[in-house]
């Protein structure tokens, strides 16, 4: 048996975090487990930067693991690795708090899964990675073990498990249709005319849950705020992208477009507006995430060039959203007016980028995807920026409301989101030409600028209004509130079918009767007559 074929780095990028995770379980390391976390994504980051040619195969692992790195995968891998690295650094203050060993262990597991999703070429590896992401991240959510966190965890695990099942069944259908385990062939087979729509539907269900596709998003606003800040950052920045990438990988070009696009738009606008009813800035960010993911899902649905450029969009959103979440943490650690203003400023800058203010990374991302869109959907995209600006302004307001107390190493803490922010705003510039096919000059054309600017401008008056006249403040979990809070219910089942291992009644009856018959037979009077009778009977029967 050969351990692996092809470049080793991709395999190492997956195994390394797992090893670290295992290490964190070692008693001596448990207290300082968090210190190991920044090391985990390093190989992956290196891989993303160095790039890798060719397929890595480990024929004996699982059902034969195969990994590869193309441009989209590389982009997302890099974004994920970077985000996880920064988040890990941001998590350092947790050292010494209770349960950090478990937290760290599963942190590594989720990371490995998250990277695996972007590297996997075969469906089994993909499924394994995806399962690791969605189920292990439960531990990130419930880490605080507050009642809120546990409730969020309950909701999450139920929905996530349902998603896993849908995914498994969908993938099985795909694998059977394709007679192969390769992701590409499965997508092709599912796209082929006459293939079962059930498979695609199940896949969309499974990935949509993770990607926060409306109406499967209900867990997200509960879970993301519940996790500790670094957790929220990776959840909202990187993990949701796993679901998105799943859609990109498996849902055939054009299939379900009419379903995905409207749902995406509903998410994009609905979530943004609902976010205005949230008090907790993390919840607001969670809703903004749903809204952004809605956009990306719409793009996937739209297909064509838009679909191709989704990773570019995802890159920006991941970094930016990570930065914003981390900023919430930094804000909590700041009391001085200066520091709080600094946070606000940075948050404003990143938000502006997300909203797509001209010349920001966000604007580039939107410009890149727009050119693949039909007019009406392009318009929708622009309009969504209005909603985005609205909710982000609301976020800034909520952020400013937060009161924190000073903590050590504030500078270092602030540096992390700052780095991410810078990356988010400037990163897209580096990749622009590669992903849009236009030169930088395209960005400075007037209509591009206008196109990016007017939505934000339109957003200002309503934003002011919202700040002036508050919307009713609601707890997170929109649809759940409508459906009524989720409660565990014991399953009621009729009594079991099983034989009774007891026959005493029958025994008593039998005893009585047998005694009676025996009493009759034992009388010679009777038997003595029986004998000749039997002789006659026998005689009659014989020739």
């Amino acid at each position: 048996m050969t351990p692996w074929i092809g470049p080793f780095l991709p395999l190492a990028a997956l195994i390394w975090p797992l090893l670290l995770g295992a290490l964190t379980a070692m008693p001596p390391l448990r207290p300082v487990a968090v210190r190991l976390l920044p090391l985990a994504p390093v190989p992956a980051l290196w891989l993303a930067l160095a790039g890798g040619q060719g397929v890595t195969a480990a024929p004996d692992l699982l059902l034969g693991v195969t990994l590869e790195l193309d441009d989209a995968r590389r982009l997302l891998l890099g974004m994920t690795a970077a985000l996880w690295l920064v988040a890990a650094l941001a998590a350092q203050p947790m050292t010494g708090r209770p349960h950090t060993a478990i937290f760290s262990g599963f942190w590594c597991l989720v990371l490995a899964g998250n990277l695996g999703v972007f590297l996997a070429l075969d469906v089994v590896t993909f499924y394994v990675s995806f399962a690791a992401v969605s189920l292990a991240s439960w531990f990130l959510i419930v880490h605080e073990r507050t009642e809120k966190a546990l409730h969020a965890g309950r909701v999450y695990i139920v929905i996530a498990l349902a998603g896993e099942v849908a995914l498994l069944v969908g993938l099985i259908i795909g694998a059977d249709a394709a007679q192969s385990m390769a992701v590409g062939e499965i997508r092709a087979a599912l796209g082929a005319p006459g293939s079962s729509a059930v498979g695609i539907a199940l896949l969309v269900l499974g990935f949509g849950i993770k990607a926060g596709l409306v109406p499967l998003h209900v867990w997200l606003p509960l879970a993301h705020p519940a996790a500790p800040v670094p957790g929220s950052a990776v959840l909202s920045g990187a993990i949701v992208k796993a679901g998105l990438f799943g859609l990109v990988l498996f849902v055939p070009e054009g299939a379900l477009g009419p379903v995905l696009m409207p749902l995406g738009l509903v998410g994009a606008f609905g979530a943004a507006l609902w976010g205005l009813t949230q008090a907790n800035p993390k919840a607001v960010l969670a809703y903004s995430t749903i809204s952004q993911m809605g956009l990306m899902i719409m793009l996937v649905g739209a297909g064509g060039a838009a679909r191709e450029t989704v990773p570019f969009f995802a890159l920006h959103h991941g970094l930016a959203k990570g930065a914003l979440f981390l900023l919430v943490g930094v804000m909590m650690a700041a009391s001085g007016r200066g520091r709080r203003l600094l946070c606000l400023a940075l948050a404003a800058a990143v938000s502006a980028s997300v909203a797509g203010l001209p010349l920001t990374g966000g604007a580039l991302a939107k410009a890149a995807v727009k050119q693949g869109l039909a007019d009406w959907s392009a318009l929708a995209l622009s309009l969504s920026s209005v909603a985005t600006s609205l909710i982000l302004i609301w976020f800034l307001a909520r952020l400013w409301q937060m009161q924190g107390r000073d903590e050590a190493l504030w500078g270092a803490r602030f540096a992390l989101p700052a780095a991410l922010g810078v990356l988010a705003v400037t990163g897209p510039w580096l990749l622009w030409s590669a992903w849009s096919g236009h030169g930088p000059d395209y960005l400075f054309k007037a209509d591009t600028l206008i196109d990016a600017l007017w939505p934000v401008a339109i957003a200002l008056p309503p934003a002011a209004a919202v700040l002036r006249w508050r919307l009713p403040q609601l707890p997170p979990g929109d649809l759940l509130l409508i459906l009524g809070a989720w409660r565990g219910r014991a399953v009621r089942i009729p009594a079991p079918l099983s034989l009774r291992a007891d026959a005493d009644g029958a025994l008593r009856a039998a005893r009585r009767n047998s005694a009676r018959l025996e009493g009759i037979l034992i009388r010679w009077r009777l038997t003595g007559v029986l004998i000749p009778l039997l002789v006659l009977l026998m005689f009659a029967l014989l020739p």
Partner: protein
Amino acid sequence: MSALVAVLVLPLAGALATVALPGRAARIAASTAIAATLAAALALAAWVAARGVPRLEIGGWAPPVGIAVEADGLAAAMIVMTATVMAAAGLSARHMLAPGAAGARAAFGFWPLMLLLWAALNAVFVSRDLFNLYVGIELLSLAAIGLVAIEGKAAALAAAMRYMIFALAGSLLYLAGVVLVYAAHGALDAGLLTDRTPARTDGLALALMTVGLMAKTALFPFHVWLPPAHGGAPAPASAMLSALVPKASFVILLRLWFDVMPDQATEGALALMAALGTAAVIWGGLAALVQERLKLIVAYSTVAQIGYLFLVFPLAGGASAEMPWAAGAWNGAVFLALSHGLAKAAMFLAVGQWMAARGGDRLEDLRGIATAMPMTAFAFALSSITLVGLPPSGGFTAKYLIMTSAFAAGQWGWALVMAGGGLLAAAYLYRPVAVIFARAEVPDSPLPSRGRQVVPLILAGAAVALGIASAAPFDLLSTGRPQAAGEGL
């Protein structure tokens, strides 16, 4: 050849000796006789297996005037089984006869009766002369009745009396049949009768003999005498009575229906016998299920097991005789008789030891006896396995053969009787097994030596071994077997 004579003469001589000699010497004489006969039996079996069927015409007079005895495979197998059971019973007997005056009389009467019984059994197995068979089973009954009554308790005497009535009635019916046969053919030798010219009275004669033998075999509905008799006798006596005595009359039935008058067999008659057998299986099972005394449970299980034996007739007799499946049924029946003999003896001997230890055989008395006497308990469990017909055991092999031939013959009903009977057996044997293996703190009176505890285990082991190493016994059975049991399936 001489072994054939020995198995007949030695026990008789022993019987006489034990009557003549005073107590201690009598016991020694008995032991020697037992040992010698056992040896002779084994020798005979070896002889038969090696050189075929020995035939002895007593006094050199050939039939019809003289009397011929011959030991075919069936006879040899039965004789060996008898010898084993007898030896075992003898080993455990001296310690099991009740103490006191009754015990003394028992101790005096036991050995002669036992040896007489043995001689009669062997005689029945090897005789080829109908009248000789009559004498044999008559002696058999008398000795058996004596054994039942040996302790002289009122209940035992009543049981013996009842047994007596049935036994005498049976033998008289048989005698009547014999008389008719002689009147018709002027010959009584099986060999001569086989190729006789059938006469009108043959049917009546066969009917008379069959019913008479049924009464002696305690086939339902003539089983009523058996449970009180076997339940009342001392354990070793019950062992012999239950394991051996019914087999003798059954063997005669086999000879009648398969050797002497196969031509007389009709579907109806055969079915009637099997039907009675079925009734016995069901009735014996149900009755055993509801008994409270262990010895009665075991006795009723004998009733049920006898029922199985009669299933052979429709499967191997009459029209089926020529069919391939007849062999399976015939072998199965004989095998069942053998393994049942061993297992049942083991059971009674085990129960006897427990009664000695606990002073009673009600299930409640025996709770938890397994902890005190594991080997006997294990023996009982093994025997139960054989009786239920679970593999690996002689009982299973027999059951399998009979069921297969039943299905092959398209007479599924009988197969289902076997199956259902097995379940019934499981049900009524589970109660005692569960009780003796249950946990209970009961002070046990001094236990019999391990050496004696192992005796039932050996018997039970033999019964199980019959199922595992059944090839040799089958070869033995196949020597000189009636053509109804030629190779088949």
